[in-house]
């Protein structure tokens, strides 16, 4: 008679050191091996969509900051591109260049947090602090231009709230030169560390077709080997003027699409963002950044779905406007919301310690999951 064992249900979260926010994972454990994972979300639901229906178009921008609070610049960028497509207005080149530079700086800052917390979840405390020290430089760049460090409300419909600071260009160049060697330092310390490889290689393998079927996007999809990047697929703003590669997972240490690949894709992406910043920083044309800002934003009746490349994946804004000042309905497709569905799929058969590594490699922000 086989020994009857029943699975133990362990609740990981909502207060847990490594769930990247208020997420509750209901783990069904057989000893230490995971039988089933059921994520419970909604603890950070602040009803962005209900708010958006009573705000005017410019007033929604501070709310988009607070969705993915680690990449507010990209949230603003996504919303602003959507409304401009709806209004059909053309934004001066100076604004386009500044927006691209700000979005790429924000991508580096957001990846720094993602890589840092991924390493922290696996126990490497020091790289997390090195990366946060580098992130400080970017935050001070942002603070110098628009006054805020995390939630900027910087990109407005048709322009920007402030023009860039006179010595912004010099400081950004300084940052780029300062930052390149620190990436190699991170690689020495963490990326190629045998224990880190042991903990992340061949863990949470995401085959390409399940990734597409689950709608995964961003570094999670690119980690599985598909070079799908919206800046190249469906170029918005002026991304088609810059040449940069799209890093994908190559299975250097394990199979393609495991945690290590998703981690390493983010490291390579930071370098690509540096390249874009270098190409974009010099040719910033002169001009007034607030020239194309309409006095009253009243888009015509219609719908628009615009998607931009947020550091975590495809951030889509589906805006329905019925012609008056506040939007009729805004639906936000948060990349973390969609990527989090993979947890149930990826964690089967792994150990409790791997759930943390997988969650770290998917890199979700609960503000965006719960909206």
């Amino acid at each position, binding site marked *: 008679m086989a020994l009857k064992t029943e699975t*133990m249900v362990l609740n990981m979260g909502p207060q847990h*050191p490594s769930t990247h926010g208020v997420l509750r994972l209901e783990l069904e454990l057989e000893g*230490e091996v995971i039988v089933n994972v059921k994520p419970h979300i909604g603890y950070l639901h602040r009803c962005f969509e209900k708010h958006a229906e009573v705000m005017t178009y410019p007033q929604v921008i501070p709310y988009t900051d607070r969705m993915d609070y680690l990449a507010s610049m990209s949230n603003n960028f996504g919303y602003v591109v959507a409304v401009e497509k709806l209004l059909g207005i053309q934004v001066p080149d100076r604004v386009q260049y500044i927006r691209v530079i700000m979005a790429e700086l924000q991508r580096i800052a957001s990846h720094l947090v993602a890589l840092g917390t991924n390493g922290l979840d*696996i*126990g490497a405390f020091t790289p997390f602090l*090195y990366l946060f020290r580098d992130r400080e430089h970017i935050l001070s760049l942002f603070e110098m231009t628009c006054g805020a460090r995390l939630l900027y409300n910087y990109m407005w419909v048709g322009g920007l709230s402030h023009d860039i600071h006179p010595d912004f260009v010099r400081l950004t160049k300084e940052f780029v030169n300062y930052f390149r060697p620190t990436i190699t330092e991170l690689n020495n310390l963490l990326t190629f560390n045998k*224990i880190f490889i042991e*903990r992340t290689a061949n863990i949470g393998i995401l085959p390409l077709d399940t990734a597409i079927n689950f709608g995964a996007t961003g570094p999670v999809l690119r980690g599985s080997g598909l070079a799908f990047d919206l800046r190249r697929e469906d170029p918005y703003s002026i991304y088609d003027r810059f040449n940069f590669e799209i890093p994908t997972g190559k299975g250097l240490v394990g199979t393609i699409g495991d945690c290590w690949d998703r981690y390493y894709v983010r490291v390579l992406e930071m370098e690509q963002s540096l390249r874009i910043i270098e190409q974009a920083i010099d040719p910033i044309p002169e001009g007034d950044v607030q020239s194309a800002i309409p006095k009253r934003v009243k888009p015509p009746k219609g719908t628009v779905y615009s998607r931009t490349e947020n550091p975590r994946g495809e951030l889509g804004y589906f805006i329905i406007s019925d012609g008056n000042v506040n939007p009729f309905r805004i639906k936000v497709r948060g990349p973390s919301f969609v990527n989090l569905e993979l947890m149930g799929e990826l964690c089967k058969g792994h150990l409790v*310690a791997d759930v943390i590594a997988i969650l770290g490699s998917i890199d979700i922000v609960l503000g965006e999951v719960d909206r």
Partner: protein
Amino acid sequence: MYQFLFNITGNEIIAGLITACIPLVFILIFVLFAVWFERKVSAHMQDRLGPMRVGWHGVLQTVADFVKMLQKEDIIATEADRKLFSIAPVLVFAGSFAAYAAIPFSSKLLGSEVEVGIFYVIAISSLVVAGILMAGWSSNNKYSLLGAMRSAAQIVSYEIPTALVVLSMVMLTGTLSLDKMSQMQTAHFWDWNIFGGPTFGFAKFLLIPFMFVGFLIVYISTLAEVNRTPFDIPEAESELVAGYFTEYVGMKWAMFMLSEYANMFSVSAIITILFFGGYQSPVGYLGNTLGAPALIPFEQGIWFIAKGIFFVFVQMWLRWTLPRLRVDQLMTVCWKYLIPYAFINLIIIGIITLL
């Protein structure tokens, strides 16, 4: 030491008590220093400043923490198993404190010159496992239970490589007593066991690589025994919140910290005795040159503590560099890598000592 005190006081119990108090006082002082030292080392390694406010460069920080611990309310969870919950920290600390009985700090100051020193130390330090299991089970919390089971498996399985390497050293030096081992590695640092032991000759040079391999194995496995990174799985913050001492607070938690740091020093002490010449100074004694032999025991004590603290520093250095291993990888490292290497090392050293 015990003999010397016995002559003065004439009564065994008092003499025994006093000799026991010396290592206890040393542990308390060492732990006060080590906690501060770890916070400063980790801070400077991470481009931070660490505690700066309490005293010069935060020197009194640990004293402040200790006072805070004292006045913390001692909470025991309602469903917790009361008796086990309170005994566990005492048992864990007893396990690590008892190891100090056989550690020779200097030729004069050594606990009890017990003949089977190294054997005793290995046996007593596995008492800690029982304490950890009690702590994990009695705090009635799923996370602590998981943490305790993991640490039991870890400590028990890492006893074997330590024992194997210690066996090879005992074979080389021929004695189990720690004191004799230290005395054999006298005069110059190239007489230390890591460099092939005191007897000069062809065997010495043959031994050096295997001694180094033995040192690496025993260092890694004692790291695991003390639950330090990369093997700090029982109290892995990111998975099990704080492992077996999640539910502890105030003085009980302080006992766990005390025993962790005491264990750290006792383990590095054993490594210095086995490989780096215990309390022998690498460059000869000041006492001899100045002609005041009474000075030598103190010098030896200083050398011994300096070497111990160096190895404690290396443990801290590792903690702030490496990520954490998973439980099953921990087992593969032990059973598939450390034990085979230790066996081969044992056999080769055995052959060499026969030459």
